[in-house]
């Protein structure tokens, strides 16, 4: 049996969290409204739609794409996306015969300011263990079968550099504007465990 990914457990963690918050507030060390503001930021303001805008612009604006290659951190910050866990950004490009996949084998490093908080599977032992040793098999878990001749490049986020995958632009999207293109960009496609959506699917 698979014994992880129980992030929906209402164990004693809930009681311990409440106790810790109560004590920290009583000690004047934590403002409960600050916690509310943090939750609101990651639940409502920052998420995969943020990164999707970067990808859509990279697909449509060649100057932006070359700026991303030059200095991803500054270029993404120029769109208003910067800060915690996106201080040092690199973008990696899928293309003919190349597929990129991002992991953090040592913890859960993820570009928060560009993709929001990571999903449970990204933080779970199966993904962290296997993404480096059998990335093609991991991709099959996500329903992605790559051609044998496609090279797979895995990026293990072992320092403070955060990676964003620019997936391939789907065929048949020539007439779409940036907003319509962004709607095709999934979270998985920006981590490398998926591809951008087909516009007709």
């Amino acid at each position: 049996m698979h014994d992880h990914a129980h992030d929906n457990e209402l164990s004693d963690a809930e009681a311990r969290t409440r106790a810790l918050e109560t004590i920290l507030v009583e000690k004047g060390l934590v403002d409960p409204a600050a916690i509310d503001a943090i939750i609101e930021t990651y639940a409502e303001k920052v998420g995969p739609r943020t990164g999707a805008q970067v990808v859509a612009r990279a697909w449509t604006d060649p100057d932006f794409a070359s700026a991303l290659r030059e200095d991803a951190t500054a270029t993404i910050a120029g769109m208003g996306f910067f800060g915690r866990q996106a201080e040092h950004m690199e973008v990696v490009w899928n293309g003919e015969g190349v597929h990129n996949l991002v992991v953090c084998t040592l913890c859960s490093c993820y570009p928060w300011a560009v993709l929001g908080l990571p999903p449970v599977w990204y933080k779970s032992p199966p993904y962290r263990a296997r993404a480096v040793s059998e990335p093609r098999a991991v991709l099959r878990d996500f329903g992605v079968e790559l051609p044998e001749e496609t090279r797979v490049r895995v990026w293990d986020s072992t320092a403070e550099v955060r990676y964003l995958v620019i997936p391939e632009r789907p065929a048949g999207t020539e007439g779409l504007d940036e907003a319509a293109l962004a709607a095709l960009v999934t979270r998985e496609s920006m981590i490398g465990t998926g591809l951008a959506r087909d516009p007709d699917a």
Partner: protein
Amino acid sequence: MNGPHDLGGRAGFGPVVVEQDEPVFHADWEGRALGLTLCAGVLGHWNLDASRHARESLPPAFYLSASYYDIWLTALEALLATHGEVSERERASGRMETPGLRPERKLDADAVFAVLSKGGPVDRSGAGPAAFAVGDRVRLRRGLVRGHTRLPSYAMGRTGVVTGIRGFHVYPDSNAHFEGEAPCWLYGVTFTGEELWGSGAEPGTEITIDAFEPYLTHA
């Protein structure tokens, strides 16, 4: 340290299970635990590397079976106890016994946006010349590391190629133990699947890690 967190290449965890339409938080306490962790970090008793080290130092059986927010919460309890802010007895009773040490550093709600926007860049000035260049063949350090390190065990002793120079960054192996930021050059180092996994490697794969200069020697 090659603790339970050092997962790259381990077997036996089964398939990756993806939850469709996964919510950002699965329960209210997860968001509160995240918020508490960030708020407590602003008090400045510890740094990001020390908090990672607290998580990887949790008992292996717990680390491998707990949810990620429970790992964060449990490490936060440990850090607050170690740094004298909240004792185990206070947690057990749910009552404050001693006042907070750094209330003047409390993160106010109206400062959250600024703090998250600023983040915590780890690039530093004062760099000397980098010892390695793109294209250099390098061997990764091997051997037991008792403290914090960001060199995954699967790369120890392996030979790769420098494929990027990332910057002059804080050295986690030192910073996690409050021994100074000791900034050094950070490189992208790329390995073939065969170099890491031998005949067990999938064909046509390569793996890049970000490796600090002290991890590397010329190969």
